[in-house]
């Protein structure tokens, strides 16, 4: 199984991409897609790191929608600030202390931080202890840290069980 299907999630993902690309689920396309979805992970297996496995896929879906929602909100907030009182913003640098160490979850978290309200993850600090964040306009970093911890990090830990 491992030989034929080294990364089932990836294969599935690739198949989806394939079908999206062709915009068709005709037998020919699907069969070929399956072939590629199986072949490519085998070919690129050495380059596929030992990523943490998604243990709770349904939570991942929830996470995804929360993320979409937050992205939209984030946009409105930042847009309002840009158009409105951009000279009075109070940017801030602070560190979000990480509670996880796994590569993939940390990456997802950092990406999430960047995509969501008023924060950009600038650095992952030494020993993967924290994420240096730049906030667009934030008086109190602790509030942000709490939100991130609660809203994203917690969920990610659940999804990946780490």
């Amino acid at each position, binding site marked *: 199984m491992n030989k034929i299907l080294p990364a089932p999630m990836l294969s599935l993902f690739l198949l989806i*991409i394939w079908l*999206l*690309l062709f*915009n068709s689920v005709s037998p020919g396309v699907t069969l070929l897609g399956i072939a590629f979805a199986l072949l490519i992970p085998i070919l690129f297996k050495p380059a596929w790191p030992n990523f943490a496995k998604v243990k709770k896929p349904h939570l991942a879906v929830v996470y995804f929608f929360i993320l979409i929602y937050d*992205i*939209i909100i*984030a*946009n409105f907030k*930042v*847009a309002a600030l*840009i*158009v409105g009182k*951009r*000279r009075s*913003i*109070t*940017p*801030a*640098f*602070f*560190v979000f202390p990480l509670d996880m160490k796994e590569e993939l979850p940390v990456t997802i978290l*950092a*990406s*999430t931080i*960047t*995509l969501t309200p*008023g924060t*950009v*993850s*600038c*650095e992952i*600090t*030494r020993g993967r202890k*924290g994420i*240096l964040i*730049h906030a*667009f306009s934030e*008086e109190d*970093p602790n509030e942000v840290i709490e939100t991130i911890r609660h809203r994203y990090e917690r969920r990610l830990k659940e999804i990946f069980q780490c």
Partner: protein
Amino acid sequence: MDALNELPVWSQWLVGFFILLGAIFAFIGSLGLAVLPDFYTRLHAPTKNTTLGIGGIVIAAIIVMSMQNGLSLSELLIAIFLFLTAPISAHIMAKAALHTELKMFHRTKDFREEGDAYEHEKTDS
């Protein structure tokens, strides 16, 4: 162009909404890039607004294509790739900015402690 006008009116409204939304967001993103005071704040504008702006256009495109030829989600791929890569770009740029010690907006509050970032360490070459 003519083909678009043949779409049902409700979908025209929907498409129009998403196009406008996307365009406005993207515009604001770029506006932010142009007018915000320092690099770090400017970084926020395009990574969020422009990305979402594209999202709007993508949705509009999906609606149009789907209305014409049945469900068509190809354009979703564009959004996927964009959402996957935009944070990395921002991350690397921010790293570079920190590394080159760019001047910050004077109102920036710095809660960093020594050792939070790598670039302050002395090299041992």
